[in-house]
């Protein structure tokens, strides 16, 4: 996988993960172009898109579009399922996830993505194992912060 983008129906970027080194300018250009193209597609159209020399696989969940770029020989359907598994993971972690969870906790969404995909390849496909890893890290954070009052999170 070359990159993954999450954006809203309004075209606002919510998450971006690049697995190929590109300059910021290129990233912005690609994002702009893709968001436009994907948003312009009708719901009954297929989830794939030939774009430059890449293949774009996208899927809409509620108000959020998940969009991955893969190479030509990659399997489009399994990429759709990667998106789906990621949504499942988010859903499980946040408990019925919605766009706002991802906006306000985008760093968490990144942590989960990093446990699931690493360097553009599926790292761990077992839902249980991914969540276990995230929870362990979270738990350690909690312990760590409760041990030292200095580091206590300022609760709003």
């Amino acid at each position, binding site marked *: 996988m070359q990159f993954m983008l999450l954006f809203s129906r309004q075209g606002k*970027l919510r998450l*971006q*993960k690049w*697995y190929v*080194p590109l*300059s*910021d300018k290129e990233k*912005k250009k690609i994002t702009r172009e893709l968001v436009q193209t994907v948003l312009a597609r009708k719901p*009954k*159209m*297929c*989830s*794939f*898109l*030939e774009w*430059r*020399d890449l293949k774009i696989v996208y899927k809409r*969940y*509620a*108000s959020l579009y998940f969009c991955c770029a893969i190479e030509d020989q990659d*399997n*489009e*359907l*399994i990429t*759709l*399922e990667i998106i789906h*598994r990621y*949504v499942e993971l988010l*859903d499980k972690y946040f408990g*019925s*996830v*919605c*766009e*706002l*969870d991802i906006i*306000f*906790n*985008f*760093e968490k969404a990144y*942590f989960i993505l*990093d446990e699931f995909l*690493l*360097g553009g*390849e599926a*790292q761990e*496909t*077992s839902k*249980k194992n991914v969540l276990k*890893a995230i929870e*362990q*890290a979270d738990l*350690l954070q909690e312990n*760590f*912060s409760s041990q*030292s009052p*200095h*580091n206590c*999170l*300022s609760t*709003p």
Partner: protein
Amino acid sequence: MSDVVEKTLTALPGLFESQTGAAKITNRLRQLIKSITELTSKHEEENLIKRELSAIKEQVSSPNTTMKQMREIMVRAMYCEMLGYDASFTYIHAIKLAQQGGVLEKRVGYLAVSLFLNEGHELLLLLVNTVLKDLQSTNLIEVCMALTVVAQVFPKDMIPAVLPLVEDKLSHPKEIIRRKAVLALYKFYLIAPNQVQHIHAKFCKALSDKDPGVMASSLHIYLQLIRESPDSYKDLTGSFVTILKQVLGGKLPVDFNYHSVPAPWLQIQLLRILSLLGKEDQSTSELMYEVLDESLRRAEMNHNITYAILYECVKAVYTIHPKAELLEKAARCIGNFVLSPKINLKYLGLKALTYVVQHDAKLALQHQMTIIECLDHSDFTIKRETLELLFRITNAQNVTVIVEKMLDFLRSCNDEHTIIHLIGKVAELAEKFAPDNSWFIQTMNDVFSIGGDLLQQDVPNNFLRLLAEGSESKEEDDQLRLYAVESYLTVLKGHTSHLPQCFLQVMSWVLGEYAHLQESVDRREVIRLLTQLLDQRSVSSETRVWILSALTKIPEGQTDLILDLAESLSSSQDTVLRQQAQELRHLSQDSQLREWVLPRGAPWDGIEVDSSLSFLDGFVSEALAAGAAPYKPPHQRQEELCEDRALNLEPYSFSLPVSLSSCSITDRQSPTLLSVSSGLSGNSAELSQKAGSSTLILEGVKRVWGKDGYLPQKEATAPPVDEPSAAVQPASQQEAAERIEPRPEPSTQNQDKQQLASSLFVGLGVGSSVSLLGKSEAPPPRFRKKPRPHESSSSSGTSKRSSDSSSHSSRNTTDSFLYGSFPEEEPATSISTFDHTPKSTTANGLSQNKDTKEDRHANTSQILGGDMVIVRPSTIQDKHPPSVSSDLTALLPADLKDLPHSDVISLTSDPSLSLSSCRLFRDEALLLVIFISNCTETVIKDVAVQLTCEELKTASLRGNVMDCLEARSTSVCHYALLMDDPHTNVSLTGTVSYQTQPGHTNTLPFSGTLSTADFIRPLVVTTEEYGKLWLSLSHDVKQNLKLLTDAGDPLRTTLNALKDALQLHVVDIIGSEGIVACRLLSGAPCLLHCRVNGAALAMWLRSPHPALPDFILYHCQRALAHH
């Protein structure tokens, strides 16, 4: 996903209250996000983020900020970056956070690093120590974090530093660590394969890991390794088959199930590996038949994920050595895809078919109705894939229908990539299967007009080559050429302004070369049509050259027309055109010379462009023998300069001149040896390093002569061969197709679809003997190219031609096309017979400059201000003195009014139109505003300004074309010009064309010069920043300048004078020293350090751009001299 509850922004307030424990949001981030959602305009958002970023900047640089606060700040910075704003000043703090923070902060720090920094970013070096430390940590979480970051971004050069630690982790007791380590090594393999070569054995251990996650991760590496060299891993086939069997048999923990399918990702990975291993290898393929069969059988459930596996399975079955039974099953599977109502599956079905029809074209036949439906599908993606499929099943019988469909699609398509891709295929099909001449020419006309200037250069080149070389039968060739000539004359009689340049070029070449074949056509008519093109402003100067070459070739007898044309062009602004006009004049007057230069009907495959310049070999070897240094290309010289500084570890090598003279002088007549020696002179330095082995490098050198004399060119004979057909196709397959063949009677509304189907799939049917693609039954391709000695790309014309070689060959052909059939011997003399301009096109820019300078001398009285020079035709010069109206600046668009600008100067004028210009200095560009005033009482129509300047880039232009200009009114057009590389002065030339009466176009040329000074902008920096920048710049120039001593403070006066003239920024003046800064538009900075040295000003300039200081110095000198 239906179970994800959609919550909209209206739920926002509620959400804040519900935020507890697990999803804590820091105060500031929440505030930031909340206020952004409340904003209404992009502008407000920009302001808010700007404020936020400056707050962040303040916080990160404060020493009191705790790590905890830093963590919040980093999250906010990531948010700002995601919105598209630059927060690069936080990058270093992200690294610090990963380095110094506790686990809590480290996690965010590492995340920020992986999001912010690219693989090549220099700051990553600072991360290496942190990663090393964390890899050795006893805290598992820290090790995980370090491995995660390593697998995403890590500097290539530092891999050896962490490699041993990562390797150790492969035997870590925790599976999550082993898994991450494997993926980190995968990443290392991708960016630096050599460095992980020694650990292949450990990959093997990972493959047999007891944890399925680790094993699955190792498959990524194996897929990559096997893709590169399948032969080295054949022995692992058994293991992969066993693993796949275990997965299919449900031996993995239930955790790995996905929608009750066992480990689908793992299955797909394994299927891919197996298809790579079994490709063109019968014995390996036999090992996997059973498991593939099982895979096909198991995937029954109707869910996306099973289709994903099936698709991969079908691909594998068709990639490996074929087995009838499996192929049959796979074909049925494809049916399920194609017939599925789900559009995603339909798409994959088409894709699979596209892949499969290469082996078995009949499969497309079974699904013809679906394919027809997809052809009219509203989804662009589906349509395109269908065309791709049709392209594969094209044969001589259905080519017209398919090409028609492709062209229809292209006419409605506006995606550049798609057009380039498909139009090449249309051209390929047309060339391969054209049923007759008129269709072929018509189709190619469509290709040229649709593809336009996006076309790959080899499409027109191939077409012209085909016309020029012809086939065995001269009669047929001439007929084709005749059709082309006729067709083009019709095209040229119509509207030509919209035609792409490349089409015009093709047409003019063909007309020039073959117009004489058509007896009935009036030569004068051809000349008139071509000349008409020359008058069009949309025609590029390159096309003009093509047109003129064509005119040169049209036979004699029309001297009066030609002389008129030559006369009118002899005052052209373009030196190349002027030169060609001269040639035209000479040739039309001297028929003998013409006969010699442009022999009619000479077989032009006799022309061979000697790109190696081997005819100079004698000269080169003599020079070398006389002790001259061998030629080295500039880049090589540069490299060697660097190498010279290191120790030379090579043993003494032979000196080159000896080996060269011995080999090249032995037999002067042998082209092989000559071209070898010319290769030598090209790469002499490389050779001298390798001379120890004393072998000649013959790579890339064509062997034309062997021991026994001339070698006939065999390999270049490449008739358009189709894909080797699936001769292996078993009989049962055919029977299966036959069974399905009888289709239900067409219902009435389907009748036309059926008709379309019969025309599309003709030639694929079982009834006709042509059942497989590209079998010998297919009629021979219409256009068979003659073998050519220096044809570098085969004429089968797949789009996967190596771009290098084709671009090379295309350049050669364009060169020779331009000059039709120039005699090969001594091209130099034939050009030099035209005594007027001995320099050819290469001298273009130079001589143009010279011309402008000459013009300036002639018109010195006209220098009005700035550096603008007016060049006007001298005839009208006296009647209409330039009138510069100062109130023109009032006409500037409102958004430009406030910019600093120069005086308005007149550019040119005639009785109806007058042009003036003004330069506006914008930070990132120079705006050249041209005022076009109508001096008459009538409306002027179709006014168009065209400006050319080779040294400058036009970033934008507005208002250069107007439909009409009212009486006594003025219109404004402006060009934003950019200068990438400094020049002292650049000259602009341009024309304005207009119509006072319909059909009567006037052109008014103008020109002017701009100086680098127009592109210099102040660079506002503080003294500290100046100091830092000074140290980082490499190119410096020192010079003493005149000091203005007429006022009290000479230094200040001088600097102010410079500042006024050149828009410099005076940073600081300390005692007798002053520092000044400027930049070239928004590009390279230049720093000036000035010191009073007696009566002179010692100026020291530094810049990252090697040439910029010189130009600035030049302008400083001028400014002071003028003062």
